[in-house]
Every structure is written in C-alpha cells, then in structure tokens.
C-alpha cells in the first residue's frame, strides 16, 4: 500500500470518529514530541533547539518503529521550535524559558508569566480596543514577532514531504484558534491579580472580555475561512475547570467565548476541537446546547471518561483520556488495562484513543505500545 493510500484510510477513520460514525477501528492519536529519545537515549530536550534537524530525523525514525507505526497521527517536525514557543507564550503575554539556556538540559520548556497589564489598562481597552492593548503589552514584555527567526520554508516543505511518506492522517491536528479571552486576560494580569479583579471590578472585567471576544473571535474565524480547508479548529482552555471556577464566573466570563466561536465555526461547517484541561465535569452540560457533532472534546484525563460519556457521549466525539503520568511512570500492563477500560466505556464510535492533554516527553515506549496494542485488540 502506498503512503497516500494509507493516509486516505487513516483520514476516513478519523473523519468517521469525529462524525460519530463507526470507523473501521478506533483511531489512535498518540503523537508526542519526546519520541526521539527512543532512537537516541542520549538526546535531551535542549537538543530540540540546539540541533533541531537531528531531532527531526530521529523523531521520524521513531514513528517507523514496529507497533508505533500503527498510530494514525504523525509527528510535528520541521519548524523552528524557539520561535514557535515564544509566539505561543506571547498569547499569554508571557515569555518561554528554553531548556539548555534558561532551564536544565532535559527540562520541558516553561511558560514564564510576566503580567504586564495594570488595573488602569482595563480602561485603556474600553477606550482604545484590544488590538491596541495587545501591541502595547507586547512592547512591555519585549516581544517582537518580527525579530524572531523566520521559518525555513524550504526545510519545512522537505519535512512535510517526509511526514507525508509516513502515510498518517491529516486530521489529527487542526488550525489554532485564539485562546479564550478569560485565559488571555488571566495571563496578561497574572492569575492572582485577575481573580482579585473578578471580585473587585466585575463589570469592568466583563466589559473588557466582551470587547476582546468581539475582536478576537471574528479575527480567528476569518483566518479559518481564508486559510486552507479545515475540518476542525482547536481552542485551548486550561483555567476554567468546574473545580476551579464557579458556574456563575464560567457563565459570565468564559462560556460566551465558546458560544460565539462554536456558533460561528458551525456556520462555515468547521468543528471546534476543545482542548480542555482540568476537570470540566460540572460544565459539560453547557456544551449540549450546540448542534450534535459540532465539537470534539479533548480532556487532560482530569475529567473522568464516565462523565464525558454520560453527558456528551451522544453529542460529540471524545479524544483521550489515558493519564499522562501513567505513560511516564506506569507499567505496560497498567497502560494496556487503562486503554481497555476507555474502550469499554466509549464503545465503537465517537472516540479517539489518546493520552490526556498530550503524550509527555518522558513517555515510555513500551507504554505507548501497550495502548496501541489494546486499541488494536491484540
């Protein structure tokens, strides 16, 4: 079978799962950025920045290992890691600490919150808009996208070709949408300040979030419309679980972002992939207001699968939900049993096997193999 034919089979499998139809088998999306260590155990995370081409090369080798090659998802390679990570951190007006420079050699990169926004800046947003404030906050943290190394498009194209040769699905990662305004603002102010703001000036925070929602959602949806054809687009949420904020706070400050985004994307036939960390059990019912199959829920393992199945099982595909700690320190038997348990709960449709949040950098190869084998029924 050619890689192109394999990609078609895997794409069909993924699309069936997210449309809640019965695929030929449950898709497996277990991509991790630390798989390179399975090929070269002396390589460290700092090497992703110091010698990225070597890491890309051995990451590709890892995806060709027996059993591992059964995964439907492919690797993320071919981009300049530091530029990508600094842009990612800038979504929170934060900086990224890089292993080997700011952190030990084999540490994972860290988002370092700067909190450049002041209390008075709420009025600035109300007067001048969020786009103005964004530029000003970038200036305060010293973030200048133009000064980042430009992407090596020739190398990226070469890597894309190599990834295509693996015959993986093209539908395991979607276009990235802007972060919910609640998340952005909590980064801009730093979390403790932001929670004090919610108590001391609730109306002002609400007014600013409304402005941010209006500006960022329309921009994000426009980018999806004008970009390559998309099946789904991804939103990340990490600071809004139901064991972290109250329903009252969620309803006023957070959910409107999801509501506007999901509705707007649905109008252009694009699904919303909800990468929601923390325990969302108490908020899952809010997502039943959207048309069936308009979202995919991607938890980090803290929302129990039983709760997801019970509340959202008839509404959307669910990806997950092996605990990431288990693949790092558990045994293959424990991982196999965890995967079997998820398969028993979820049945034969509306499910993508994965590790909650993402596969950690120190995942053991034999544990990932155990999850794959359990999913394949071997």
């Amino acid at each position, binding site marked *: 079978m050619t890689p192109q034919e394999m990609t078609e089979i895997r794409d069909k499998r993924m699309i069936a799962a997210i449309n809640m139809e019965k695929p030929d088998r449950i898709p497996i999306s277990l991509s991790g950025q630390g798989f390179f260590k399975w090929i070269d155990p002396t390589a460290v*995370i700092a090497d992703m920045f110091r010698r990225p081409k070597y890491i890309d090369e051995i990451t590709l080798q890892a995806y060709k290992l027996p059993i591992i090659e059964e995964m439907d998802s492919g690797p993320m390679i071919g981009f300049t890691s530091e530029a990508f990570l600094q842009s990612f951190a800038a979504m929170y007006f934060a900086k990224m600490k890089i292993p080997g420079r700011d952190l030990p050699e*084999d*540490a*994972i990169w860290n988002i370092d919150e700067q909190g450049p926004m002041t209390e008075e800046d709420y009025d600035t947003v109300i007067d001048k808009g969020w786009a103005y404030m964004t530029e000003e906050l970038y200036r305060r943290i010293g973030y200048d996208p133009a000064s980042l190394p430009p992407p090596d498009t020739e190398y990226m194209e070469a890597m894309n070709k190599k990834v295509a040769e693996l015959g993986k699905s093209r539908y395991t990662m979607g276009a990235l949408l802007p972060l919910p305004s609640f998340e952005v603002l909590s980064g801009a102010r730093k979390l403790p300040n932001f929670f004090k703001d919610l108590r001391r000036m609730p109306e002002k925070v609400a007014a600013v979030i409304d402005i941010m929602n209006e500006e960022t959602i329309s921009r994000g949806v426009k980018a999806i419309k004008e970009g390559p054809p998309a099946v789904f687009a991804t939103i990340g949420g990490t600071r809004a*679980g139901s*064991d*972290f904020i109250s329903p009252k706070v969620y309803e006023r400050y957070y959910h409107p972002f999801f509501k506007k985004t999901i509705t707007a994307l649905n109008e252009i036939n694009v699904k919303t992939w909800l990468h929601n*960390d*923390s*325990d969302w059990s108490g908020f899952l019912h809010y997502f039943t207001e959207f048309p069936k199959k308009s979202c995919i829920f991607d938890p*980090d*393992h*803290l929302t129990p699968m039983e709760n997801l199945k019970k509340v959202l099982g008839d509404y959307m595909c669910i990806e997950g939900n092996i*605990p*990431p*700690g*288990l693949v*790092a*320190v*558990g045994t293959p038997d*424990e991982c196999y049993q965890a995967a079997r348990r998820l398969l028993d709960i979820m049945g034969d449709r509306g499910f993508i096997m994965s590790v909650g*949040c993402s596969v*950690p*950098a*120190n*995942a053991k190869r034999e544990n990932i193999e155990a999850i794959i084998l359990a999913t394949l029924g071997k």
Partner: protein
Amino acid sequence: MPAILLGISCLLTTAFDNIKECIQTLEREGLRGDVKVLIGGGPVDEATCKYMGADHVCRNAQETVEYSKKYMGVK
C-alpha cells in the same frame, strides 16, 4: 511546630523524579514519618503517587482541604 502536612504541586511529568527525590530526602533526614505528603496537579494520578512514594493524590484544592481537615481532626 513541625509540619504535619506537605503539599507538592506538579504540572509536568518531567518533574516526577524531582518530587520523588524530595520525598526520599525527607526519609533520609528522618522526617518522613512525621509528615503526610500530598501531591496534586494536572498530570498526577495514583500511579504517580506510588512512583513518588507520596501518601495521597489531591484532585483539586477543595479535596486537599477536606483531606487535611479530616487528617488533622478539624471540624
């Protein structure tokens, strides 16, 4: 007054070994028997608790308070 509860938060699986080392240090210093070690954070679960040698996994802040009050006999 010596600590009777020690809470350690963890957001990265790559920090598991550091926390394990921290708990082993308590043992080496003869302090482990006097303190309950609670762990919490996104990637932590029962397997992690066993690996680190901690006493209890707290799923969230509320559970941590409930567990601590019960352990300390606070009503």
